[in-house]
């Protein structure tokens, strides 16, 4: 009820039609903040805002998770000449909701020889890490939970923590398959963290800032993938590959590798705890895609070429939120295409790919990018 203060104030203060809000969320959030400040003390304002944001992110998490599960099943079905889910609702859109309900009601099978505390803790670590990264992503102009000045650094640092959850899950299950899967996952994520970091660093050089809002703003005259010439394209490709590897997906799903380790680190999990891992995989994919979209493809920034012209104004007509999600879902589709096309790598080949191919290319690429920026050859 208190929040409606801000919205009312905002709407009454707004000059244009109500849907202008989709183009700029800054004044909306500011007005809500001001309204809350009028109603209560600064401490309680902060608490209320945190609760509101928390609830919004929980909802967002659930909706995106369910949608991505559905999308993956549909995408893989179309690739494989199948129909995919088609029973519940039109085109089976309620299939994942039904799956979720089923998973909620399923028994949580206790493992006799498992380390119960760690076993129960592991899924939450994975989920919490997801939330922490989601908070830093700019979804649209002004729709941004925290705009850290070290945004990229924070994203890299936090996302690499999810390996702890996976390792805990594998170790505490006291199962041989799980342990093998967890160890693979550990080696994999630690290695690919490097490539992710270096690929993002390439763009940081170009943008001159780590703050995500500044990076997006810097792409007003053109996305970084166009601005940075070939080095940016290479960095983008490397980021997508390394990001896919970091999410344990696609050709890099060694930690799960159902033809070798049945289900890898979450073999022993059941019910909603399994669902947490399952959802976390999809949210991870969303995170990787959204960061790639933000850093390389301009985030919520529409497709712009050069300074103010007719083309840019037509592009501006599409709201930034739609731009952001369109780019993200396109990248998610690409990552899904990887998974459903390629065979799985072996663990030593996976590390070879990282240390012998991606990392050297990445370092050279970084130098070239630094040189280009120094000489001012970028657009």
């Amino acid at each position, binding site marked *: 009820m208190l929040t409606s203060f801000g919205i009312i104030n905002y709407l009454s203060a707004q000059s244009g039609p109500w849907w202008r809000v989709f183009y700029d969320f800054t004044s909306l959030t500011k007005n809500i903040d001001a309204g809350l400040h009028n109603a209560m003390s600064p401490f309680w304002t902060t608490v209320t805002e945190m609760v509101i944001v928390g609830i919004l992110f929980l909802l967002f998490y659930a909706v995106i998770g369910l949608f991505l599960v559905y999308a993956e099943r549909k995408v*893989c079905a179309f*690739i*494989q*000449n*199948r129909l995919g889910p088609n029973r519940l609702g039109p085109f089976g859109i309620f299939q994942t909701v039904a799956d979720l309900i089923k998973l909620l009601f399923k028994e949580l099978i206790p493992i006799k020889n498992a380390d119960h505390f760690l076993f129960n803790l592991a899924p939450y670590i994975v989920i919490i890490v997801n939330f922490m990264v989601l908070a830093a992503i700019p979804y649209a102009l002004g729709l941004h939970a925290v705009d850290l000045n070290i945004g990229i650094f924070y994203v890299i640092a936090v996302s690499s923590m999810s390996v702890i959850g996976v390792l805990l899950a594998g170790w505490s299950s006291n199962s*041989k*398959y799980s342990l*093998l899967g967890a160890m693979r996952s550990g080696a994999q994520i630690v290695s690919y963290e490097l490539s992710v970091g270096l690929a993002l660093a390439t763009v940081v050089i170009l943008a001159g800032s780590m703050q995500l809002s500044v990076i997006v703003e810097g792409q007003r005259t053109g996305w970084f993938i166009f601005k940075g010439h070939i080095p940016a394209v290479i960095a983008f490709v490397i980021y997508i590959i390394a990001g896919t590897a970091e999410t344990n997906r696609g*050709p890099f*799903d*060694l930690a799960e*590798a*159902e*033809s*070798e380790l*049945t289900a890898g680190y979450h073999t022993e999990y059941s019910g909603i705890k399994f669902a947490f891992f399952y959802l976390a995989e999809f949210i991870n994919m969303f995170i990787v895609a959204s960061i790639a979209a933000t850093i390389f493809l301009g985030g919520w920034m529409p497709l712009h070429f050069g300074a103010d012209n007719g083309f840019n104004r037509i592009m501006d007509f599409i709201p930034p939120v739609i731009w952001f999600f369109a780019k993200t879902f396109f990248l998610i589709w690409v990552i899904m295409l990887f998974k*459903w*096309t*390629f*065979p*799985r*790598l*072996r*663990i*030593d*080949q996976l590390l070879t790919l990282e240390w012998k191919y991606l990392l050297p290319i990445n370092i050279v690429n970084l130098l070239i990018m630094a040189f280009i920026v120094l000489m001012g050859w970028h657009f």
Partner: protein
Amino acid sequence: MEEKVKDIDTDEQQEYIINIGPQHPSTHGVMRLVVSLKGETVKNVEPHLGYIHRGIEKMCESLTYQQIIHLTDRMDYLAAHMNNEVVCLAVEKALEIEIPDRVKVIRTLMSELTRIQSHELFWASYGMDLGGQTCYFYGLRDREMVLDIFEETTGGRMIVSYNCPGGVMYDLHPNFQKRVKEFLKHFRKVLPEYDDILTNNVIFHERTVGIGPLSLNEAISYGITGPSGRASGFSCDVRKHEPYSAYDRVKFNEVLYAEGDAFHRYLARVEEMRESMNIIDQLIDNIPEGPYAVKMKPVIRLPEGEYYQRVETPRGELGVFIISDGNKTPYRVHFRTPNFANLSVLNHLVKGFKIADLISIFGSLDFVIPDIDR
């Protein structure tokens, strides 16, 4: 069973033993592999069999020769036609019956279609074993067309039970030629796609080239036949060396490679699909007219003696050894199944490779578990 129970704590080597199977996605059936690991490296693999042993050889001793046929379908269910054929050929040879040309050609055509569908399933499941799930659906999509051809003529899709001593059960369906030509046209179109997705894929190369190499001498000593043996350069095609049915009147190449690794075992199968299409091309337009079966006595009694007959199934050489004492049921039937012989090489091949390679090697040998267990 006198199991060698290895106590992990007291074992100096600290072996890490995992069970792959009896229920596991990549054992393609009910089979248990006890794998000793050191890190991810396989030290020893011990197959435990018998989960679906049905005692077909014992059952055959109480059935007439016509009735045996329906049991052989259930050994190698992907090559049901060849399994039927081998018993029929043995019986016909024992009785010294001359088989009409039409039957020979029908059997050859059906055999080659069976080979194509079996290799397609191999392609599909091998891709899935290595993590490329889409392969499975593409392979099965095209395999369905062959199964439809089978169903139209024989009434069964996988378990065809189409042969009987003296010929085949029913005549070819009038649509047979048209359907086969449609299938060949479609398959020629999609086979390059198979190559794009899997054969030429760099990840697939990484996973298979040089994995589980088998030399020619080892292949012969271990009795590896079929495409797996031919990938090692072992010329073991029964169709060439001891032609049966109409194989003496068609031209085809025996696909031989020298490397003998998982990739060439795969490649041999893909190339065999092309050879099979050539064989079908040569025969499909000249199916001779005539009876589809010889009139046989209702009760077949084989003359006393021992009979051995071999055919080439998609997985290798299938032999049937019948000892007859002159009764209407055989005295002893023994099947020399290709998968059973091929299994013996598994431990030798996987030693020293990673656990992921175990799946790759196991898949490349293309096992059908009921054929091992019988």
